[in-house]
């Protein structure tokens, strides 16, 4: 998210410094799948953002050369396991089509043609041509590389410890834990601290409620191209939008360029607990086998976990914060951070260059949570 903001701001001619606590892309970026999806969102402001972002990522892919960020317009396939879920899915796709999503309802024959190894229990589904994927860490590094070429500076291993304010209370920079750059002055500061953006916003005295939602991904041994698209079940959409605190799992399966198959997705609200939970891994494995039976004989090579940055209303926080002039937010994108990064960076750069943003930022405004809780 920070890299996309830096890339678009640098492209717009702004002078940019990126401050990163760890290594580049070492936060949630390193623990996600790099999805650029329109399929998993219901009509509304987030879907508008996703549609814009999907177009922008295609453009980024062309500018940075697709292969350097492993951009793949692979398309998404949603599998319905029962007539009921097929009905629900058709309802969703009908709504999505009205907003410009290329969603096609498919029967079992088309499904088996798109995904020959999918379970024969499936009754149909939907195909989304716009769904794409990048290798998230590479995409981040390449965006920053391009930003550096445009004059941006990048400070890895540098944590923000506080904000600098002027006499009127406006944010004019950040203090860091680095001896080389203890203070960085700036006209604007963008909070793109991912799952830790909530903590950072408190440091700025303009809190936004960004909280961690833990997820695991299973990675298999390298295989030939046995899973062709991003494949998930109709229940996934419901889970993405849910606010349940307990464990939720739904199947998301996809192949990668390296040949490994990635299996998600679990959602748990357990704070920043980094421990491995075998019951969750087992459930993910069992559900993936349910969709792709051949996976039962495939070896699990590794697993990783990460924390999605979510807000209580499941919408990201994008735009200037009226409570702290000079501070902008680009956070709270939950599991769609990579996908929505393109649009978020682009819209913020438009705002900072004095242009009218392509999308209305009102639904994403940072102070909306205070209005909601009397």
């Amino acid at each position, binding site marked *: 998210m920070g890299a996309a903001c830096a890339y678009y701001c640098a492209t717009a001619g702004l002078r940019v410094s990126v401050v990163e606590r760890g290594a580049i892309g070492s936060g949630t970026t390193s623990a996600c799948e790099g999805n650029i999806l329109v399929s998993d969102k219901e009509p509304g402001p987030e879907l508008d953002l996703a549609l814009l972002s999907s177009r922008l990522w295609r453009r980024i892919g062309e500018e940075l050369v697709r292969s350097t960020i492993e951009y793949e317009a692979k398309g998404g396939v949603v599998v319905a396991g029962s007539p009921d879920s097929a009905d629900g899915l058709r309802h969703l796709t009908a709504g999505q089509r009205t907003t410009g999503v290329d969603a096609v309802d498919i029967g079992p024959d088309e499904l088996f043609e798109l995904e020959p190894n999918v379970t024969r229990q499936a009754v149909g589904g939907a195909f989304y041509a716009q769904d794409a994927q990048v290798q998230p860490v590479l995409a981040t590094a390449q965006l920053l590389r391009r930003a550096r070429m445009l004059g941006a500076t990048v400070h890895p291993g540098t944590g923000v410890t506080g904000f600098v304010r002027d006499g009127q209370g406006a944010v004019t920079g950040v203090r860091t834990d680095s001896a080389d750059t203890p203070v960085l002055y700036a006209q604007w500061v963008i909070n793109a601290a991912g799952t830790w953006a909530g903590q950072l916003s408190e440091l700025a005295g303009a809190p936004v409620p960004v909280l961690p939602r833990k997820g695991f991904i299973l990675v298999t041994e390298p295989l030939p191209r046995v899973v062709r698209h991003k494949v998930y079940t109709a229940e996934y959409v419901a889970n993405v939008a849910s606010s349940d605190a307990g464990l939720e799992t739904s199947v998301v399966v996809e192949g990668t360029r390296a040949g490994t198959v990635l299996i998600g997705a679990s959602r748990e609200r357990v704070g920043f607990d980094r421990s*491995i939970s075998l019951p969750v891994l087992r459930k993910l494995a069992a559900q993936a086998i349910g969709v792709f039976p051949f996976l039962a004989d*495939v*070896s*699990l090579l590794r697993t990783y976990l990460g924390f999605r940055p979510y807000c209580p209303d499941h919408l990201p926080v994008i735009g200037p914060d009226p409570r702290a002039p000079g501070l902008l937010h680009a956070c709270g994108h939950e599991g769609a951070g990579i996908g929505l990064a393109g649009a978020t960076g682009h819209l913020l750069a438009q705002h900072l260059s004095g242009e009218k943003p392509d999308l209305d930022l009102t639904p994403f405004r940072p102070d909306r949570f205070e209005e909601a809780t009397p």
Partner: protein
Amino acid sequence: MTTSRAERPAALYDIAVLGGGPAGLSAAVAAAAQGSRTVLIDAGPRPGGQYWRHRDGDDGALHHGWSQFRRLRQELAAHPLLDHRAGHSIWHVERTDEGFTTHTTHTGHTSRDGIPRALRSRTVIVATGAYDRQLPFPGWTIPGVFTAGAVQALLKGQGVLAGKRIAVAGTGPFLLPVAAGLVGAGATVVGVFEAGLPTAFGRHPVAALRNLPKLAEGAGYLRTLLKHRVPYRTRTAVIAAHGTDTVTGVTVARLDDQWRIVAGGTREIDCDTVAVGYGFTPQTEIPLQLGCEMMLDADGSLIARVDSRQRSTVDGVYVAGEACGVGGAQLSLIEGELAGLHAAYASNGPSVDRGRLARLVRQRAAQRAFAAAMHQAYPVPDGWQTWLEKDTTVCRCEEVSAGAIREAVDDLGATDPRAVKLYARPGMGLCQGRVCGYATTCLVARANHRQPTADDLRGMAARPVAQPVTLGALAAGADDNGS
């Protein structure tokens, strides 16, 4: 979803010993003898680990300490409180309310699939040993280039010679028994090429005196080599292997004290096999899974931190042998026995044998001093990095070259090995960085103008799934009541 193959974890053991090499055997036997219900879990079909790898009916002629092994093996088979689970590959150890559940796949002789088995215990003793530390060099991926350990394992375990004309290269005392074993079995060893200059050992007279048997052992190997006219060259390394389908020869070079190639000191030698070892890398997946505090050892390895009782920083987790510091079989036996005794005392509270403990602690101190002197005598300076070409493979699973690693640092701004792993994929393949983790760490650290740290190594060594397990086996465990 299949749940029929689920195995309900059996009884709760007092102690699970993970690994059946010298440290694990010694720990399990000591613990059971104190009255602890103990299980020894090991991937191998027979006990003994890498050090005592043997065949059925083996007379032990190729082994050191065979009588020690026979005693331990007999105790293992006979003690009523001690169960041996052979053929169990551990892929994850889970903390539970009652202690730990060790998740394994059991490899039977009939089925290709691993059958999931979970073993519950109050305490675990991690004795997972070490494997050869490898450094890449041009041609090291050509068939015919083996690790020194693999060549020895082939000989000890199958009675098979890896080749006819063999070059033995690397650093450390382990090269000597490997070469001596090969000539003893009838191979031609074209030379032992020791990159170091092991003279620093003379500066540790006390460590040396206390370990006369070990020095005598080394001298014995040297005599064998001399008898067979095998050249032993120090400050010399195999810097390249040649051939396409198989090794046809190597380039051997004289090195300076930083292991840079000395101009004019290279020559070609014909051979069909190369056995290479640059020390050992401890297997630390399980301590890392359990959240044990780790540290950098004198030999540059990541190891688990232990206290005087072989306890890690996590309650109920003991570590013995190479996983808490590479030091050889004798040290492993002592640490194993100490870990077994202390774990038994802690779980069953039998009366403590202070005399025995005091003797073991003294022996451990002597062995550790010896190990420290060895690490100092056989350092691995980073001049080996100059042997690499841009296109030299570093990670063979994912075919990542030294140049690609360099680009990840120079062009993409990677500051640590984990970032390089994410950008360029070294360590992402089937072996999960076991082979290239150390080399990648050193390459990235140097490219960033610094020394490797424990955190760097951890980034390449953390493996939540220690051994591949099928998704079917993983899913089938869903009904385990222990988790």
